[in-house]
């Protein structure tokens, strides 16, 4: 089989999301003041006719794009992809500074899933960009109530690679909020911040595969975060068939899948999995394991997916492959 070729020139994309009023714009301003992240192109999505946030963010006018035609997740295929492609074209032509990454700030009501899907589904975008992180902001003071009332906020938390608790200077995160976040997304590392003070390097580091794994499954009202871990390397064919089976039967209910897997054919190098809805990102081989833990770890976030189905399906497929 031929190796997977990963273009090195892809620009990292970071998505900052969070419900209304969680401090996304404040965070973005802080990030752009950091010299290490000043060379970022910023796409701001505002849900309204007057793009106020645009004026609040101190960034180069050339690389600050405001998309205010509606909620980004609703118009994502046209607006986001075209914006990214246009920016890349202008970068290539030297019409804008050679930015090193793209930061997308979603509207407070956006569902991140279609945004992530667009980043991966449009081949023109995917060949030049790679999703590094989804950072979801949660207001420490109001987060518990917001998560209880608003499904948009739940989905934003579920799909996060990292959760940032904001406004902790006003109110420390309460146990109720911590429990809600653990139920929605046990895998995402959490950090508390006040006034947007957080190291951008923590926010935008690539990867984000969990170091966690204390729970097998957590769920709330039909959405679930399901964790699989294995000690034994998996045959490549079993992984292939399992991914196909999941995508075939879960379809758009599979909101996100990510993981590091040891394959029996090359256990010294982990393969990174990444999928959004029914779209599988090309698998990527890492040069080495990120730490001493060489267990395979996979996290699925889905709606209405029975919690034991992924593990049962994998076990059945693996048994067949080993028996063939």
């Amino acid at each position, binding site marked *: *089989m031929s*190796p997977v070729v990963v273009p090195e020139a892809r620009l990292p994309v970071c998505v900052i999301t969070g419900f209304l009023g969680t401090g996304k714009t404040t965070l973005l301003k802080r990030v752009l003041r950091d010299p290490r992240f000043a060379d970022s192109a910023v796409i701001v999505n505002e849900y309204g006719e007057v793009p106020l946030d645009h004026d609040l963010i101190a960034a180069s006018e050339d690389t600050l794009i405001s998309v205010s035609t509606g909620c980004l997740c609703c118009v994502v295929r046209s607006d986001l992809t075209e914006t990214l492609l246009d920016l890349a074209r202008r970068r290539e032509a030297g019409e804008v500074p050679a930015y090193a990454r793209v930061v997308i700030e979603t509207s407070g009501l956006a569902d991140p899933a279609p945004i992530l899907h667009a980043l991966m589904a449009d081949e023109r975008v995917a060949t030049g960009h790679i999703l590094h992180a989804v950072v979801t902001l949660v207001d420490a003071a109001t987060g518990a109530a917001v998560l209880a009332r608003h499904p948009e906020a739940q989905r934003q938390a579920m799909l996060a690679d990292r959760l940032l608790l904001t406004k902790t200077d006003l109110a420390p995160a309460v146990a109720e909020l911590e429990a809600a976040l653990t139920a929605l997304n046990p895998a995402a590392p959490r950090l508390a911040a006040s006034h947007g003070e957080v190291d951008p390097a923590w926010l935008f580091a690539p990867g984000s595969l969990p170091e966690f794994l204390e729970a097998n499954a957590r769920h709330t009202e039909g959405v679930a975060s399901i964790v699989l871990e294995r000690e034994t390397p998996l045959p490549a064919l079993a992984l292939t068939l399992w*991914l196909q089976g999941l995508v075939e039967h879960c379809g758009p209910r599979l909101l996100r899948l990510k993981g590091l897997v040891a394959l029996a054919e090359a256990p010294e190098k982990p393969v990174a999995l990444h999928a959004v809805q029914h779209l599988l990102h090309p698998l990527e081989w890492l040069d080495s394991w990120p730490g001493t833990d060489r267990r395979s770890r996979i996290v699925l976030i889905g709606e209405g997916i029975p919690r034991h189905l992924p593990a049962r399906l994998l076990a059945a497929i693996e048994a067949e492959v080993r028996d063939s």
Partner: protein
Amino acid sequence: MTPPELRDLLADALALWQVPARVRVAAGGVALAAPDGTPLTVRAAAAEDRPIRWWLERPGQRRPCTSVLGLLRGLRNAVGAGEGEARRARVALPEG
């Protein structure tokens, strides 16, 4: 896969497809009824039947399945849950 393991997997799949059905262990496999009442049985194939691994049976019909994924596809069709989104995945091994 033991009959209880098969029952649990198929029950999960039916729940995923939002098909109300009770699955129970039956002789040599599992049994269930499709929403229209049609009785269905899934049995493990004998070793000499390879490459067939599973039989999906309904009155007057016996469908061979060569894999658990084929079985799920056949069952999904049999219970009227429509078709899934068939996609090809590929795991390319690293060089060296």
